């Protein structure tokens, strides 16, 4: 079977969704670690230095563009599979089993993923687009010659708007619900299902990606709003 045929099968497409999904899981860990610098009490110096490094390092920029392609690929193939799955049942059941046979999270992947995609577009508009292509305030810290783009100040101003804080929290609820099923599901697609490590995979999926990381992300705008 040629690669083009392999990745055109339902399992091949799921492997692409799973691989891109796991890559995005690794990205959220790095992104959260960077974002926590917004909570430092240093007038944003650490965060702005970090943002300048991330914005100018060629390797990071290469990965950042790759990341955007990965997000588009993940969403595109997942939606393609979703539409195909819907078409596989032209006549629906009059009575559905609800939560009796499957978890609610596992049935909402497309909806939560769509909420997340809308959130990502809003998020990129709020910060990434502004940082690279918009007007940015500048800040020169003591001991530095060049002024830095003050992304810290932009984030402080952005999260003084209550509706945006609510929107970000909703986005993170979407992330949580998506990853509670998504991480373990991606592992299963790669054939990782064994009693030796299923407990560990469930723990990582639910507690790390489903709870700790989304809560970590959501805390930042809430703290800034009430500061």
């Amino acid at each position, binding site marked *: 079977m040629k690669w083009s045929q392999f990745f055109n099968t*339902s*399992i091949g497409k799921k*492997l692409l969704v799973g691989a891109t999904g796991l890559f995005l899981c690794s990205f959220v860990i790095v992104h959260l670690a960077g974002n926590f610098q917004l909570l430092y009490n240093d007038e944003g110096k650490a965060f702005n230095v970090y943002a300048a490094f991330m914005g100018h390092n060629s390797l990071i920029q290469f990965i950042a563009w790759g990341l955007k392609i990965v997000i588009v690929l993940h969403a595109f193939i997942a939606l393609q*599979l979703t539409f195909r799955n819907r*078409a596989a*049942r032209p006549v629906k059941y009059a*009575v559905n*089993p609800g939560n009796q046979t*499957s978890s609610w999270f596992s049935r909402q992947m497309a909806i939560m993923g769509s909420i997340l995609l809308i959130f990502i577009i809003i998020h990129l508009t709020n910060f990434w687009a502004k940082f690279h292509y918009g007007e940015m305030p500048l800040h020169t810290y003591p001991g530095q010659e060049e002024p830095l783009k003050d992304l810290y100040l932009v984030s402080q101003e952005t999260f003084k708007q209550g509706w945006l804080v609510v929107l970000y929290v909703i986005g993170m609820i979407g992330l949580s619900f998506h990853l509670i099923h998504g991480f373990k599901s991606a592992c299963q697609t790669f*054939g990782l299902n064994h009693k030796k490590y299923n407990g560990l995979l469930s723990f990582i999926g639910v507690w790390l990606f489903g709870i700790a990381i989304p809560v970590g992300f959501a805390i930042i705008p809430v703290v800034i709003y009430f500061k």
Partner: protein
Amino acid sequence: MNLTLKVWRQKNKNDQGRFETLQAKNISSEMSFLEMFDVVNEGLINEGKEPIAFDHDCREGICGMCSMHINGRAHGPWDGTTTCQLHMRAFKDGDTITVEPWRAGAFPVIKDLTVDRSAFDRIIEAGGYISVNTGNAQDANCIPVDKTKADLAFAAAACIGCGACVAACKNSSAMLFVSAKVSQLALLPQGHPEKQSRALNMVAQMDKEGFGSCTNTGACEAECPKEISLTNIARLNREFIGAGLSSEK
């Protein structure tokens, strides 16, 4: 007990179909669900009406014919049973029971509750077998089989091809069925020579038949009358990846 049935009636595969409300009277709680249908059908025949068409064969949970979606569950509310093993004591007097056929584009309705599951046969034809050369059979003890793997293969081989996995899956995916058939042979030495082409061809045929893809909800495992495990789907994925990477064709 007396029950109200809302049963799907459809003259043929081109008919739109509709629900018909029927009364099932004087039903014993010890009857199986299919015996209850026999009683209702007798009544319909006596009234000169068309009886409800439904598939059944062994009535002991091994033929996989009795495809009925009962109150939103494949084969009804009990776990690990087919419809013929479901007894009326699962219901209360006065209950309303909704009975639908399997719903999947790959399983077209033939009549009422009877669906055409020949898509499964075509998947088996694509690779769910081992080729045996002519000549005398080898001494069985010449082929060592690990007991653990033999047990896993046996558990996978318990699949009766009833289609409950497809019926229960929100995507109408046939992955549990295909994975059981692939696993059963991949785990045993006899199945090894064709394991790569089997995985690739059966998955290709599954897609061709119009089944959806697996989103790992686990509904198939929950509804399977033979309790086939999701670990088989993981095994199918591993077999498929391995075959994709190293198959000569």
